[in-house]
């Protein structure tokens, strides 16, 4: 269909998974690499492969979308450096999304603490109160139990279809990122380090 939206959805926020989705209207095509520290090696080859497999040129794309994190800093940077430059040279708009965004798309969001694993011991978290995010940060498992013993904690499930509809909405709203200044959501605040003990 001529009007169908064609776009790439990139996720390099997890250290050992490079995920590339190509959305063509209703059809979703996927190329994924499960390899540690291999975002740099695999991202451009993956984009090239998925476009070729679907007989698309770069110029056929309406926009590109990338997960801004939180997640692996180096992974996010590789994704962002690649996609920002891609966007600049091909004059294709860039849209960012976050796992935390799903809160606004899902019908039922419950108050509590939403978690995304960051490492063996740490989590990215956001605190939801009265259905709004009131705080984001990074926290260790130990602190989490100490500081928030009674709040409900949950992992937000991966929901590809919701992310796709979220990103399409942003496109239709003209909610594009500034390809010069945009950067990942690093989230450092909150982690109690040896130097910054409260």
């Amino acid at each position: 269909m001529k009007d169908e939206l064609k776009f790439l959805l990139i996720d390099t926020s997890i250290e050992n998974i490079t995920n590339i989705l190509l959305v063509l209207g209703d059809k979703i095509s996927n190329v994924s690499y499960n390899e540690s520290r291999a975002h740099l090696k695999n991202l451009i080859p993956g984009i090239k492969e998925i476009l070729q497999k679907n007989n698309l040129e770069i110029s056929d794309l309406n926009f590109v979308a990338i997960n801004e994190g939180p997640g692996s800093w180096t992974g996010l940077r590789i994704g962002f450096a690649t996609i920002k430059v891609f966007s600049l040279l091909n004059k294709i708009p860039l849209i960012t999304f976050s796992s935390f965004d799903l809160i606004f798309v899902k019908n039922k969001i419950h108050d509590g603490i939403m978690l995304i694993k960051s490492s063996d011991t740490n989590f990215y978290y956001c605190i939801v109160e009265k259905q709004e995010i009131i705080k984001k940060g990074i926290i260790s498992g130990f602190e989490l139990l100490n500081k928030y013993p009674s709040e409900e904690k949950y992992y937000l499930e991966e929901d590809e279809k919701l992310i796709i509809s979220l990103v399409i909405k942003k496109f239709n709203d003209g909610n594009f990122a500034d390809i010069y200044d945009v950067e990942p959501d690093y989230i450092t605040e909150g982690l109690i380090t040896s130097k910054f003990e409260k």
Partner: protein
Amino acid sequence: MKKDVIILAIETSCDDTSVAVVKNGTEVLSNIVWNQNKTHEKFGGIVPELSARRHLKVINYAIDDAIKSSGINLKDIDAVAVNNQKGLTRSLVVGVAAAKAIAFSLNIPLISVHHIEGHIYSNLISHAELKFPHLCLTVSGGHNLLVLINNHFEYEVIGNTLDDACGEVFDKVARFLNLGFPGGPIIDKLSKEGDPKKYKFARPMLDQDNFNFSFSGLKTEITRFYEKNKDNSQMKISDVAASFQQAVVDTLIGKTIKAVKKYNLNQVSVVGGVSANSKLREDFKIYESKFGFKVFFPELAYTTDNAAMIGAVAYYKYLKGQFENLNLEVFPNRPL
């Protein structure tokens, strides 16, 4: 009719983000360098994670600037080149990711360059008379080598540092004497007020029959000397700086001349951050006439980290068809 070759080059090995457009290996159409001195002032030393974040923040500005100020169009670019072989990993990946996106988007070849190779070629940008074979002394904070350059990409490393590079020693001594950072330019300036003959510090390894360098002994000698004499009002810091600098300069020149004699070469190329040192340049010129060789130094802008030198190397790789696949990775501590 020979076609012009235009290379877009990227260099993000440490804390300067640089993008350049170079024509035919020697004509620099643009050389953009965004440095991060402000961040470092606040922290005193380097901050790898924050540096990497800054590279990402400015990369599109740098690419845009480089292309706009060069006067060329995207379709004129024949290849993209990037340093992926020496530097801080988290900084290098930003440049390499950008270069790959460029190669793919413009459907042009991708060329990889080693940072030190870039320095070796920095002299070829300004000096058409520099031919092969020649001897290259490449000296900076991160490396200290004597290399025989027999032809394009035919490097024979005949001397290396066994511990500190001389640029590193400048930094460490300057820091120890509370002179500030970066040490090289500060000591260079201060030495002009001092007497280089006042103290005779060791010229390390000059007596040994090889071309290797070792400056950690000199470093220790200066620190011990200073500790012993810091309460001595007769000791002037400018004399210590000048004498220390002279010891380094004499060592670098001494080893180089030994190599000139052994390999019978009459062209010497001195490159890298320390090649900007005024005493090194001055003294080399004196020995030039004495020993019958010609010494070449790059323009100051090409002595520090910059993308133009990467573009210079890449031109010759382009002519040879030395291209990389799009699964190119980084090798942060690969030797030359």
